[in-house]
């Protein structure tokens, strides 16, 4: 049986008996997952490749709906409703729950237009309001100084680390309540990684963060809570320090001490 701690924080999300099955398979890829996600905190999901951590992350903004035939069961509660309901407005949901991907996903347009993209989707047309919010997002993503003089340049001219910060700026520009990070530094060099980690920690004042990482040190460095997943199950969720120092489950201990994975 999994060990899931109760969190003292207010909850941003609550997962209850959640199951997920990919199209064309009968065996669920995520089994009976229940966990709270603390508000204004960072929750890391760790585990070996194929354990389902990214699958779980992509359930929070219903990314799996882009491909036909995937099935959700159970409950993910967000602001008092179950977001797995078929009638959930996904466009609305995704503006509240943003996502940063493994590889930087700068759109083929200028730096400014990248950040303004989500704002324009929300119908903001006023030039000065757009300018203000783009600048603020770029500042919050700690990239303003580097790009302020070349906002009209193609975003693909930026380095990988800059592009990833641009993607973070783009995501926070629409002021989401939750941000999902899917291994955001796995394609970056150590210095860029450090920058992103620092940024993630700063961001938790405003948003609740869930970060999937294959790097245990990263989870230990940035997160408040850590969940260890294995073969589609959540084995243990605990306060990060406790989970890494005194894990309750034998599997967790074996994984963090490098016995498998």
């Amino acid at each position: 049986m999994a060990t899931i701690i109760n969190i003292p924080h207010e909850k941003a999300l609550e997962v209850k008996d959640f199951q997920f099955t990919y199209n064309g398979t009968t065996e669920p890829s995520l089994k009976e997952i229940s966990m709270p996600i603390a508000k204004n905190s960072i929750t890391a999901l760790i585990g070996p490749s194929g354990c389902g951590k990214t699958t779980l992350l992509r359930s929070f903004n219903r990314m799996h709906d882009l491909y036909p035939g995937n099935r959700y069961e159970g409950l993910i509660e967000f602001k008092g409703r179950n977001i797995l309901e078929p009638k959930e407005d996904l466009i609305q949901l995704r503006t509240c729950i943003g996502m940063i991907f493994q590889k930087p996903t700068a759109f083929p347009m200028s730096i400014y237009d990248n950040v303004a993209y989500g704002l324009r989707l929300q119908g903001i047309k006023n030039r000065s309001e757009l300018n203000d919010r783009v600048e603020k997002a770029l500042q919050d993503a700690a990239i303003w100084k580097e790009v302020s003089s070349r906002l009209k340049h193609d975003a693909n001219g930026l380095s990988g680390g800059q592009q990833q910060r641009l993607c973070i700026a783009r995501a926070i520009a629409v002021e989401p309540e939750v941000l999902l990070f899917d291994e955001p530094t796995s394609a970056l060099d150590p210095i860029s990684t450090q920058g992103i980690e620092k940024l993630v920690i700063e961001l938790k004042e405003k948003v609740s963060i869930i970060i999937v990482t294959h790097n245990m040190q990263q989870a230990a460095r940035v997160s408040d809570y850590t969940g260890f997943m294995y073969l589609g199950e959540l084995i243990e969720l605990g306060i990060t320090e406790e989970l890494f120092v005194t894990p309750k489950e034998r599997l967790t201990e074996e994984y963090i001490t490098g016995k498998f994975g």
Partner: protein
Amino acid sequence: MTAIEKRMLTNKIVMILSTLSAFIGIAFLLWILSILIINGVSAINWEIFAFEGAPPGHEESGLKHALIGQLIIISTATAIGVPLGILGGTYLSEYGQQSKLANIIRDISDIMMSAPSIVIGSFIYAVVVIPMGHFSGWAGVIALTIIMIPIILRTTDDMLQLVPSTLREAAFALGAPKYKVIINIVYRGAKVGILTGILLGIARVAGETAPLLFTSFNDNFLSTDLNEPMASLTVTMYNYATSPYEDWQNIGWAAAFILSMFILGLNIIGRLLIMTRKGK
């Protein structure tokens, strides 16, 4: 002869044979181009562009009617074929994806692309020309559009699929509705590829003669009415080049030269665009 010497000799023979074959292929292309340039350039003068067709022996004889007819037919076919091809390709890549229906459409358009154009010409003859009772520019336009659509459809499909799915996901993750993801992100990412497909599609139909013989037929005078038979460079070239009159044959060379340069130009622009995309 030792084993290693034998192997090196075989290598040399294969290399010489394959190099020779490559040069033979190139030599024919250069031969065609040089004959075209020699005969074409000398046949080109201002009268070609200033006058319509005239009987053999007539001084004021040119290709104005064929150039304008060609331009009208090709641009009308492009105006119809490009949006249909792009929308069809969008369906395949973004909506149909790997579904059965989408794959059937892909297979059919691949077959369509290699269908002999004369068959498409005779089809339009049967379903358009005969019911109308006469040849017309429109019949030619429809025939060329049918040839063009599968080319643009499949290039669009391929080019849209090259846009990384993570880019689409990133736009969806910001709360973008699907049509906006397609227009703002996918088209934008694939625009050079789509443009290349359009150019190659135009280049392909610009050289077609067989489907026009059955459909738009010919007119030795300038006509801009698509409801009437209309001249084209290809059919005019066929008529003039096969005539026994030397002045007509010269105009035929001029037509061949102009047409080849037009198609060569489109192809070169297409290739250059592909190169800039790869260079990124």
